């Protein structure tokens, strides 16, 4: 289960958050934990360098992409490697939408589109589409596989 997906800017303000299976009262907690984790470790990290953390049986993989930090939290089948897959899809899609590792401005300009992409990538706590082109088609309401 993908428990949470969080995107924050460089100073720790949350830009996007999606939770699944996390009780409302725990979300705030997760948010501050993740932001703190990022503040402690992401300084000086390279773009798309994956960082990892775990808490009990919950795994966290996070990275920095341009001006934004991306965090994904998962458990059970979504262990650190599966999360690495997820975060790879997310970062490559964001790069695709923005054309490059986004600045905060660029990210916000493409906010709606990014939300739609995330909607195609993570669907009720389960990773759905992983293929960039397929996602691009789906957010334009085209079928996943097109006929020639």
């Amino acid at each position, binding site marked *: *289960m993908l428990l949470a997906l969080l995107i924050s*800017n460089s*100073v*720790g*303000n*949350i*830009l*996007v*958050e*999606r939770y699944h*299976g996390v009780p*409302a*009262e725990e*979300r*705030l*907690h*997760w*948010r*501050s*934990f993740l*932001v*703190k984790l990022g*503040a402690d470790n992401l300084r000086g990290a390279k773009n798309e360098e*994956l*960082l*990892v*953390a*775990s808490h*009990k*049986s*919950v795994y966290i*993989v996070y990275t920095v992409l341009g001006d934004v930090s991306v965090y994904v939290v998962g458990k059970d*089948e979504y*262990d*650190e*490697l*599966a999360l*690495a*897959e997820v975060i790879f899809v997310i970062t490559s899609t964001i790069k695709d939408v923005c054309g490059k590792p986004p600045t*905060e401005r660029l990210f*916000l300009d493409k906010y*709606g589109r990014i*939300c*739609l992409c995330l*909607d195609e990538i993570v*669907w*009720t706590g389960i*990773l759905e*589409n*992983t293929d960039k*082109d*397929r996602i691009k088609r789906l957010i*334009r*309401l*085209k*079928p*996943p*596989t*097109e*006929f020639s």
Partner: protein
Amino acid sequence: MADSTGMTLMDLITADPTPALASSSASAAPTPGPSSAPPTALGKPATEKKSKRATLMQIHNDTVSVAKAALNPVRTNIMPQKQKKKPVSYSQLARSIHELAATSDQKSSQKQLVHHVFPKLAVYNSVDPSLAPSLLMLNQQCEDRSVLRYVYYYLARILSDTGAQGLGTGGGIPTPNWDALADIDAVGGVTRADVVPRIVEQLTAEASSVDAEFHARRLQALKALTYAPSSNSGMLSRLYEIVFGILDKVADGTQKRKKGVFGAKGGDKEFVIRSNLQYAALSALRRLPLDPGNPAFLHRAIQGVSFADPVAVRHALEILSELATRDTYAVAMALGKLAQPGGALQDVLHLHDVLARVSLAKLCHTIARARALDERPDIKSQFNSVLYQLLLDPSEKVCFEAILCVLGKYDNTERTEERAAGWYRLTREILKLPEAPSVSSKEKDKSQKTRRPQPLIKLVMRRLESSFRSFSRPVLHAASRVVQEMGKSRAAAFALGLQDIDEGVHVNTFADTVDSHDSDTNGNSHPENTRKPSSLSNGTGGKDTVAGLLASLMEVVRTTVACECVYVRAMVIKALIWMQSPHDSFDELESIIASELSDPAWPATLLNDILLTLHARFKATPDMAVTLLEIARVFATKVPGKIDADVLQLLWKTCLVGAGPDGKHTALEAVTIVLDLPPPQPGSMLGLTSVDSVSASDPKSALALQRLVQAAVWFLGENANYAASEYAWESATPPGTALMMLDADKMVAAASSRNPTLAGALTRLQRCAFSGSWEIRIIAAQALTTMAIRSGEPFRLQIYEFLHTLAQGGLQSQFSEMHLSNGEDQGASGTGLGVLISPMIKVLDEMYRAQDDLIKEIRNHDNTKKEWTDEELKKLYETHEKLLDLVSMFCYVPRTKYLPLGPISAKLIDIYRTRHNISASAGFNDPAVATGISDLIYESKPAATEPDTLDDDLVNAWAANLGDDDLLGNNAPAMNRVNEFLAGVGADAPDVEEENIISRPSVSYDDMWAKTLLETSELEEDDARSSGTSSPESTGSVESSISSHFGGMSYPSLFSSRPNTYGASQTTERSTASRFSNPSTGGASMYEGIGSPIREEPSSYAFESFENPLAGRGSQSFGSREEERRSSGNPKFGTALYDFTAGGDDELNLTAGEEVEIEDEVDGWFYVKKKRPGRDGKMAGLVPVLYVNQS
């Protein structure tokens, strides 16, 4: 409109691109640095009670303006807003949608929607239902795909909202006027209940449409429908209907998968549309609850494996692997020939979807291990072979999953046997690739090379080693985790004593047999390949033994400790702990851990996690108790501030109980050195000074260390008798012998020769009582009393004499050169324990005096050849009972067996009991009797009549509170954590250990604790059972017999809260107990706990006469400064060092520099008199010793 923090994101979004960026982010984070400022509360549940009236007004205005707008030609107000750089409010957005929906056929409004309105609406965490009509209208009328995609997105969000705001899956700014709209039907508001059926209706119609051109929308409609909460059964059945309806049409028919259709292009139109619909249907099916008994469900999932769409295949496999755990047989049968070589499952091996292959691994594992399929080894082996092939997968994720499956780690419920079998498989089995007709023709050479059978262990080791060279932290973390699981399986294999686990055996010996077999059957085998391993196997000490492979792997694992990431390092350490075998030297591990712990970057949660790993490791291999305790000691001394004393104590206790009768001594030794209690020789003071340097460096950790030492001392006192198997009620030594050994040296000699364990513990405690800090001294004295009461002679006498010395004041403390205590002044005179100790001494006094009297009486009776009269017996019995009551105040003793008057009284008391029909347990006012516990305990088990050895063990274990369920129950926080950890469950949010993190919302973490506490009772049972099986011959028998005899009862135990009747006679012991059972009590209240009962009611023990035959001797031999001081009557003077504010009526305010006359010292407090009354008018009172400098 929205709260100020919520504006942030909207601010940012609507801000003017370049110049506004800096200012807006500055306003977003007024105090820079996220650790100091709480992150923005975007998704915070909108509980701020804005005035409802204002909200309603706003809604009203909005509606009015919408109405106005509807009359006028459409002119949206978004653009001007943006140019004014003012954030757009939700209501403005909502209005724009209403307006633009009406003119959705115009290009400009579509553009506005796509580029301005919808993206900004996404910022909010929910969409209120009043937008639904407009959205539905757009859905029906608009042609623009981008608009429609957004419409589906928002419809899904409306559906997914469960009604309570903020509970939707998406975060964001709380939607402002939701509450008002949901609550009140005022001003024509639309409620969720109104719109949801309409949305569902429309989406259902779209999802069922058969128009081929429409099918992309069909997909999205179906997707949006799955967001509806699954609690709605009507909704569910409708969804099932749609999904199966689609599958009925598209799933059947020839399922030829062609190369190239995975990509974007290719395939004929009909095929592609069908494949897309298959994908949508299976994706939706995956989101629906499993329906295990339904053959249609299974059938469709099976069909899904052969679908062309890779995501559909993944979902099908995920569904199947979940179904397989419920009904393995059905799934295996249904999969049938798909698993055969060339079947669809083989194709999945080459599918470019990592998660699909992961699910395949799980599915294969479940089927290959199923008991239900024992009759069909052929099926099992098919799936097994697929699983083994996944070990070669290029993706680490898949390969690791396969390794874990082979190891028997599937979910959190695996059993030891399965784990052991997993290790066996890994070390023994061979990967043989089957003939793969689909690929063989093209890449014949290559496939033949890889087709050579390989031992699994070699494959796995090679793979892991290469993974450890990766730079990716997730890979390192995962690889360490796999090694950890490997260690678990290995430990399980050793624990079960699997017959032929000889790690020195050459792995290729197994391979050889298969190899030769292969070369017989396959004509074209490669002779050099088969010869190579056999020639290697002749070499001595080659690398190819299991042990050799493991050693080289562990070498790589160890180097990974250098990783920057603390989480990876933690995982590596856990892996090392699990791979540590009981017989190897653990120096290396210890030094790794020690050097790791000096790194301040380690968060406390991780360290405690590792401690719990030690606990789990111990449970798997009880032999390792001492090793693990040594490691725990490193934790305790290096990072006392980060260790939970509860977790540590739990570890000690489990180790002590689990170590078995032979290991108890070593285990206790290990506990006592855990905290480097001051060692005897100055030569070995190194450990101590290093501890001191830690505590000196950081007052917080010094305090924590203090607490740990206290815990250890208390533990020692409580459990020494258990470890030493020395109990007064089993003592063979007649009391007379003890009284004769009045020479202290002789006594010590006798004691240590009789029971070195107890003597050792005694010495340690005595040292603590002298040289520890104030709190430790108190606990040491209490521990000694416990031991005195529980032990037979000569220990009791030894302690008795020691306590006397202690009470008189510690000349010895001056001579012992132990002044380097843990950062605390010893106090100028004495040990300061006099008041505290006197009740303890009185108990022992009473006991000895009564024993003396008894012996006198017996002699009298013997001399005069008189029978004991009933009156005399009654008196004796009353004394016996009285003493028992007294003793019970200090520590637990078994009432039936304990003889405060010495073994000699046994016969007489028995006579009286039988004569008067008093059952042994039914003392006059036994608290246990009062609470009814004794009935359960004693009557079900008349201890006196069954003197078998088991019974002794039982009583002993019980007396020491070991292994009783009660402990598990009451020590719950730590235990809970252990269980949770072992079970690997729990997704609760992590603790954020910074103080300046935002305060928590109304639900506190404690509440959540309480919740988990209630829920994990089942886990605890499991745990108890598993600890029973971990050491079958020792603990198993004791524990299980305890639980069978006394199952589920609460014993009087220091860990547990006492029966209420004890409350009346609250003792210092009691406060100690409660302190240790309550981890949250801080230092200050600990002090209160000890101080207050003593100060306020020092006479709670009604001992009037204090005569002691030994007292004179004791004070002569040791002397007492305090005594001298008091008797000489010289007043002492001092000056106040600091300001002191009185904390109670009997305390005195001090101003620094003030001169006082010291009248008396009690327990670290001076009773002082001032020369003139202070501002509060008080002249005299108590002040802490440390505040006064004696002149």
